[in-house]
């Protein structure tokens, strides 16, 4: 095109608009990488309980989740599944027998096998008077690093811990039962002493419940899609539920960051609209520059359709080149951003793959729109 220098500024404008919009999109992708993205496949587990207040303190029926609470919890869109934690309704104690001289009062809890993060649950059944136990890995760490060293006691490996047998004494309403307790695994998910649910349910069933406590669960294990979800945090706060998960605290920061990003995205959309407006004006200018030439060629026998599609093709290819240049510059910027300290090694070295699709999608769309628009203008503006 002879008038390319005339159009240079318009191409420069288009370049700036695309550069802004495309970097906004990439920025959004980067933010998701830095703060963890939402994916429907990911699962996070949080243990929820109700916040203790002077009103509910000591009252299990108030501090626990009843069936209605649990049903409601299941309906939250952020929640994938809910597993209530059953606790013992009788006195439990443990002692080391003759092997390790110790005695302690303790508690037992149970949850559906599905919620337990121990791979092999084949041994997790009460057989021959032996209760299989799963404890939190934190408990073993607490003993090994916090307790054993100071008290001059031996540290215990997981394998060794599984070999120790302790006596578990259940003090029931009518009788006392003695079992052997055997550790079969450690859980990273649940901070508790877990026994098979069937077993705990059957023993609990023999006890006379305080009717107020029936089907009340003090804690529930909740499977969620995204533990950083700010909506989830808001709902939990409203209901007075709490969780000790660190990730939930970071979600508050994330919420604010995404607010900033949404603002950026909003500006991006605004720029994009401006960009479309520019493109249309750009086309009109190009068309006006060539109107006379096209009109003369038409009267000489050149097909208007072919001439218009030639102009549109030329324009679309130029837009494609502008986008390509933008993306290449963006790739370079992304590379340097990813190796810079600020990214903390969390950012990908390349820009999001789908951005490259814009090289084809935008020019193709423009081609068809421009083709239609120019043809319309052309037919209307014929010099007869």
């Amino acid at each position, binding site marked *: 095109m002879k008038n390319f220098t005339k159009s240079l500024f318009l191409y420069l404008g288009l370049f700036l608009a695309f550069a802004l919009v495309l970097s906004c999109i990439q920025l959004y992708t980067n933010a998701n990488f830095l703060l963890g993205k939402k994916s429907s496949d990911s699962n996070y587990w949080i243990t929820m309980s109700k916040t203790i207040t002077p009103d509910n303190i000591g009252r299990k029926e108030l501090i626990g989740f009843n069936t209605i609470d649990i049903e409601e919890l299941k309906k939250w869109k952020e929640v994938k599944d809910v597993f209530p934690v059953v606790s013992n309704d009788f006195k439990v104690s443990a002692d080391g027998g003759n092997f390790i001289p110790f005695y302690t009062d303790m508690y037992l809890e149970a949850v559906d096998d599905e919620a337990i993060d121990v791979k092999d649950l084949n041994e997790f059944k009460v057989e021959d008077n032996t209760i299989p136990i799963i404890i939190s890995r934190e408990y073993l760490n607490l003993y090994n690093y916090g307790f054993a060293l100071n008290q001059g006691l031996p540290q215990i490996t997981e394998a060794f811990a599984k070999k120790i047998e302790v006596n578990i004494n259940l003090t029931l309403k009518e009788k006392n039962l003695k079992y052997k307790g055997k550790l079969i695994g450690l859980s990273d998910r649940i901070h508790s002493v877990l026994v098979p649910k069937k077993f705990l349910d059957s023993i609990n069933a023999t006890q006379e419940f305080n009717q107020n406590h029936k089907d009340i669960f003090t804690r529930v294990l909740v499977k969620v899609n995204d533990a950083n979800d700010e909506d989830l945090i808001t709902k939990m706060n409203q209901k007075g539920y709490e969780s000790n998960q660190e990730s939930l605290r970071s979600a508050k920061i994330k919420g604010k960051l995404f607010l900033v990003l949404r603002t950026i995205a909003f500006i991006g959309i605004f720029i994009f609209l401006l960009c479309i407006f520019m493109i249309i004006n750009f086309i009109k200018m190009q068309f006006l520059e060539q109107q*006379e*030439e096209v009109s*003369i060629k038409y*009267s*000489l*026998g050149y*097909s*208007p*359709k072919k001439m218009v599609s030639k102009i549109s093709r030329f324009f679309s290819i130029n837009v494609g080149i502008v986008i390509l240049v933008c993306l290449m510059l963006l790739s370079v910027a992304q590379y340097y951003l990813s190796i810079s300290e600020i990214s903390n090694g969390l950012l990908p070295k390349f820009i999001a793959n789908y951005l490259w699709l814009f090289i084809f999608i935008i020019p193709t769309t423009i081609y068809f729109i421009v083709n239609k628009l120019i043809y319309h203008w052309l037919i209307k503006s014929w010099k007869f």
Partner: protein
Amino acid sequence: MNSITLDGISPKYFTPKTIETDSTIWNTKTTFEKGNYYLVIAPSGSGKSTLATSMLGNHFQYNGTISYNQTDLKTQSIERIVAFRKTEIQLLFQDVRLINDLTIRENIFLRLFGKKSNEFEEQLQSYAKTLGIIGLLDKKAKNCSYGERQRSAILRSLINPTDFLIYDECFSHLDLENKKIAFNLISEVASKNGSAVIFFELNDFPFSHQCNILNL
């Protein structure tokens, strides 16, 4: 294309001065045949350009029908009508219509539709010499006088001639000598090609010719 037939046509949006006269083309049936020369004489305001452009298929602002052979133009798509202009009909507009930013040579070669221009170079040189514009070929159209542009446009119409050549007051800015030269060149090319020529003029030519004279 062997004939162009005008059947009962009259302009839609204005009434030509001559429409009431006996010898007019308006509202009658006239057929232009390939190989013949015609001179349509009419005063200003009688619709010469309107008729010429409607014969090219540039607009349909007339009542009646214009047919190429037996094909009614009004039934054809724009693309189909434009296709006729490559080999079957062309019009030299009164306002010449050269592209200002192109040289005279480039303007003339627009009629080649991408064919190899060096095959036509010899012909171009010979016609340009006859018309006295050989020195203008590499000059931009915007830098030429109206008379020069008129002669260039005549050359453009002859480089790849069609079955019908229509000229709308194409000699208006030429002196008598140049008029004769241009007329003779057009006749020569048309007879070689077997084309029909239709001139629209205000008055009869001031030199002898063999055109069938019609009034509008």
